[in-house]
């Protein structure tokens, strides 16, 4: 670690992992409620668990992005953060606000929470992923502004690199698109229309810039390939992301009451969205194959490669599966969507945050470059357990989804929703069991931070280029 202020990343990473555990626990609760309807009734209803599961996901990913930025920016800008104190203060504000919001979800009926927090003054609550009370949303904006100021000022007054500029654009875009969560028109079509400007333009727009730049940073550090080469890839990837992703929003405008041309625009542009994800996969493998040195942190390289593959599978392949209007006509809002949502979120954003944590945490905890071999082996077990579990969760949900689409929407005698759900119980059980394996993987992953910490650092074997020459 070259700069003292990079240290502020550490609490962000720790909080991220902590909230990740919470997210998974609530996922398991819901998974069980799917097959045992009255589990935890009336303490934690399904809709509350769902809200907690998804909001925790978003919040911990935001913690992860901020931590990644605080670690990455000083090194790229070659100067200390403008204000490490501000970064720490924002950490606590964000953590407390987040915790209070989750507690509010759990212990106060949602409508009372809305009353208590003055939702009627500026109503923004009640929409998927954006359930947070208005004051929490305002808090997020304040934290985001302070954060952007901090890293923006650092980047602009230091060395400007493609990696840090793309990251800055991505993070600024994240904040700007979030502003649409304050727009809550009465017209339901318009409401949905702009809701997607937050949700879709996040994960298939600006977040992809964040993903690309973090991946580029870790690859520069671990492979030693020329920055110039890596930055060119980054430019091509983000250009393609924006060209396809912005109009690709149209794949959510098929059935909400928008004009018909969206069926074409959405289908054509979103069908191209897998391209930048595919490029990312090729990019990661290409750079690792051309590496100039072997980095001792093998776990971080594994996470980076895993991100490339899983993001392409989850977003690219599983996204493409249901993105054309004639297909989406049948699959819209089924378990296919949930399957895709899980693999895409995990493969792209969970994994990139874990990649950065894997790369940075050893240094933040006083290592030269990497953890001990034993710790890395455990971490890689965590990697495989979680990754294989999410693959299976996705496969089970996809199977459930196909069956659901058929029984409910395509067969000669379509069955009602709940009748079909009963018939899918087997897949839901399998999903739940796999979810437990995921949790075990997460525990193993966390354990890797505690094993082998007294042992010496993993050493480097010679790079293939040197060995061959």
């Amino acid at each position, binding site marked *: 670690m070259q700069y003292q202020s990079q240290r502020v990343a550490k609490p962000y990473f720790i909080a991220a992992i902590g909230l990740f555990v919470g997210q998974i626990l609530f996922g398991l609760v819901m998974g069980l409620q799917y097959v045992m309807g009255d589990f935890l009734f009336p303490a934690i209803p399904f809709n509350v668990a769902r809200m907690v599961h998804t909001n925790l996901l978003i919040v911990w990913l935001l913690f992860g992005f901020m931590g990644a930025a605080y670690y990455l920016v000083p090194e790229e800008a070659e100067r200390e953060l403008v204000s490490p104190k501000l970064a720490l203060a924002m950490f606590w504000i964000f953590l407390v606000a987040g915790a209070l919001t989750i507690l509010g979800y759990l212990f106060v009926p949602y409508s009372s929470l809305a009353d208590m927090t003055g939702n009627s003054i500026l109503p923004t609550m009640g929409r998927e992923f954006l359930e947070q009370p208005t004051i929490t949303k305002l808090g997020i904006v304040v934290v985001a502004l302070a954060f952007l100021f901090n890293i923006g000022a650092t980047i602009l007054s230091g060395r400007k690199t493609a990696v840090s500029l793309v990251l800055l654009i991505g993070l600024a875009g994240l904040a700007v698109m979030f502003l649409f969560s304050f727009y809550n028109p009465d017209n339901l079509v318009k409401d949905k229309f702009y809701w997607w400007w937050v949700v879709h333009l996040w994960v298939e727009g600006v977040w992809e810039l964040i993903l690309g730049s973090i991946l580029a940073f870790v690859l520069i550090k671990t492979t030693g390939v020329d920055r*110039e*080469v890596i930055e*060119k*890839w980054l*430019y*091509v990837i983000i*250009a*393609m992301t924006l*060209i*396809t992703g912005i109009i690709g929003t149209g794949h959510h405008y098929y059935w909400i009451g928008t*004009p*018909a*041309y969206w069926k*074409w*625009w959405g*289908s*054509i*542009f979103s*069908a*191209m969205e897998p*391209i930048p994800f595919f*490029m990312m996969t*090729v990019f990661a493998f*290409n750079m690792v194959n051309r590496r100039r040195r072997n980095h001792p942190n093998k776990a971080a390289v594994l996470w980076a490669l895993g991100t490339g593959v899983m993001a392409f599978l989850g977003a690219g392949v599983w996204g493409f599966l249901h993105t054309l209007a004639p297909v989406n006509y049948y699959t819209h809002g089924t378990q296919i969507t949930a399957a895709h949502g899980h693999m895409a979120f995990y493969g792209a954003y969970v994994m990139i945050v874990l990649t950065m944590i894997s790369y940075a945490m050893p240094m933040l905890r006083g290592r030269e470059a990497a953890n001990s071999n034993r710790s890395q082996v455990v971490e890689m077990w965590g990697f495989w357990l979680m990754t294989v579990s999410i693959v299976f969760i996705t496969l089970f949900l996809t199977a459930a989804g196909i069956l659901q689409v058929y029984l409910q929407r395509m067969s000669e005698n379509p069955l009602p929703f709940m009748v079909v759900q009963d018939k899918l119980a087997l897949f839901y059980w399998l999903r739940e069991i796999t979810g437990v394996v995921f949790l075990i993987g997460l525990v193993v992953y966390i354990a890797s931070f505690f094993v082998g910490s007294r042992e010496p650092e993993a050493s480097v074997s010679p790079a293939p280029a040197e060995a061959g020459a």
Partner: protein
Amino acid sequence: MDMHIKTTEQPTRPAQRRYPPGDLALWIFILAELSVFAVFFSAYAFTRAQHVELFSTYQATLDCNSALANTLVLITASFFVVRAVAAIQRDRSAETVRWLWLAVLMAGLFLLIKGHEYAHHLAAGVTLSTNTFYMFYLSLTFFHFMHVILGMLVLLVLAVRTRRGHYSAAEHTDIESGASYWHMVDLVWIVLFPLVYVMR
């Protein structure tokens, strides 16, 4: 895939070169762009197959003369760009600047003519929702229109930077990249013009 991003150091004897002029990363971008257009074109053609009457009827309302003018304008711009590259290869940067500006001018002219066509449609009350033909016609041409704007900006930046002495016979990868991008914009129109205006 073996990726040598810098392609200027390759042997100059044509028969031995492996990579196109300009930055290879840009060529990958061009490929991606071309695939979007390929999908768009086929979507047009296959949809037309189901509405032949409708398409012919409304194709007849398009202004073929403007399209002719615009095709010639784009080809001319491409020719100027070729001349700009030739000039910088011979280290004549003042000449390069002139050719680039002429190409920018042509791009501007294209936008004007196309804008005039759009104004006409707008006045006639045509929108994306009027019918499937107009939906395609407007979407396709407008998507291309945006590419002309982008290509024009690229050429403009290149002109300014050449003027400031950034490029020489020895190093002009950016100019070759920009030129390739512009030719791509031209190439797409070369297919779009007959497909939308002429083929009924």
